[in-house]
């Protein structure tokens, strides 16, 4: 395998990183909204978000990407593959992160909310200053775990013709007939992305726990 092929893989890697980053950042923002709606105490809002989470947890990511790519095109929204996949990943991530964080928010003892209320803190401050900082610590292992899943999940974007790392590997492999070498490298590149995250996650977790259990 020559340097030209390797560069082609690296370009694929760039798209994988970008897709993961967009999916995670947008997914986090939307997921926070989902988690807050899911714990709002407003029955209608809670039911709608429960259905939303149910749909995205209950169907394969592959199908979700199909629907955002071909489905949106059917209703007249002809989107670039990149945009369609980014939307699909965002929706997917927001549902999973929303559910992870709902659980974390609910795992913060009720006395914390009561103390904050008794101190006259309003909803935004109660969440921002009291509940979420504790919920984040609780959610870290699951959140990092999901991020790693999401990075690997971006490989499904190849199905709508998007040339990210996996598809780039496929193309090169078909050209030079060295599948073992090519996919070995592709696998190593995924590992290099995911493994540091796991390590960083463990570090963050330690720090959060340290603040609580010194």
């Amino acid at each position, binding site marked *: 395998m020559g340097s030209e092929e390797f560069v082609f893989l690296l370009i694929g890697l760039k798209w994988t990183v970008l897709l993961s980053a967009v999916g995670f950042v947008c997914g986090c923002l939307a997921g926070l909204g989902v988690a807050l709606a899911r714990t709002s105490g407003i029955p209608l809002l809670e039911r709608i978000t429960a259905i939303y989470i149910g749909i995205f947890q209950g169907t394969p990511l592959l199908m979700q990407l199909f629907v955002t790519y071909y489905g949106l095109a059917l209703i007249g929204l002809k989107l670039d593959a990149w945009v369609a996949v980014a939307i699909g990943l965002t929706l997917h991530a927001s549902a999973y992160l929303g559910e992870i964080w709902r659980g974390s928010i609910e795992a913060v003892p009720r006395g*914390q909310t009561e*103390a904050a*209320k008794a*101190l*006259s803190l309003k909803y935004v401050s109660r969440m921002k200053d009291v509940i979420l900082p504790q919920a984040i610590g609780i959610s870290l292992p699951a959140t990092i775990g999901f991020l790693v899943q999401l990075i690997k999940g971006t490989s499904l974007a190849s199905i709508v013709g998007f040339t990210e790392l996996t598809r780039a590997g496929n193309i090169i492999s078909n050209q030079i007939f060295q599948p073992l070498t090519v996919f070995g490298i592709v696998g190593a590149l995924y590992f290099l992305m995911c493994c540091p995250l796991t390590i960083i996650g463990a570090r963050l977790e330690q720090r959060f726990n340290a*603040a*609580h259990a*010194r």
Partner: protein
Amino acid sequence: MTTATASVQSPITGEAVITMSHVEKWYDAFQALHDINMSVRKGERIVLCGPSGSGKSTLIRCINHLESYEKGEIRVGGILLGNQAKAIDAIRREVGMVFQQFNLFPHLTVLENCMLAPMRALGVGKTEAADRARSLLARVKILEQAEKYPIQLSGGQQQRVAIARALCMRPKIMLFDEPTSALDPEMVKEVLDTMISLAEEGMTMICVTHEMGFARQVADRVIFMASGAIVEEAHPGEFFTNPRHERTRKFLGEILRN
């Protein structure tokens, strides 16, 4: 022997800062509070006692709307406590609360615990909030722990921080919900001493507690509840030596035996 009267006059006279009239509360089919009528004057110290499940905690949690009530009327500082966010907020700024489980914010230092509410709810500046927090931490004799996290403190110390945190809002009324029940016996005194000094400075207080020594020493009135209703209220002297109701006698017999 004094004649039993329906409502006991406290030596404290002055405006009523809390009035509850005909308050009733249900949890679904279970009635938690029955026709509660009570008024607390400025500077009065009330001890609320009664067997477990008698509604004491529910009653004081209604005063700052941690619990809602279905019937009757509660007024705090002249404000009618209904479901309007504005009234609830106004009342919570005047009423501090101390919980059985302390409920300090574990991710914030002792000092930050005390600074948060004045900054966020009252709009006090950071420097002033820190000054205020330090002076109140000094007052509960725990200033040297200001930079520590709650988990690093003993239960008694945590509860004193919780008192300081509530006082940082400069409340006019303090509610104590079994503040010493979760403490090891050797730590009860430090918290009670803090509460006594607060009482001596004229703070209006309602304390749910089984510390009858505290009730004897500082209470202007003791209110005894059972099954969600007020059974008896009396000056502590009379309450302990000459309880009028059978249920009160039974309760006192049980807790004073220890």
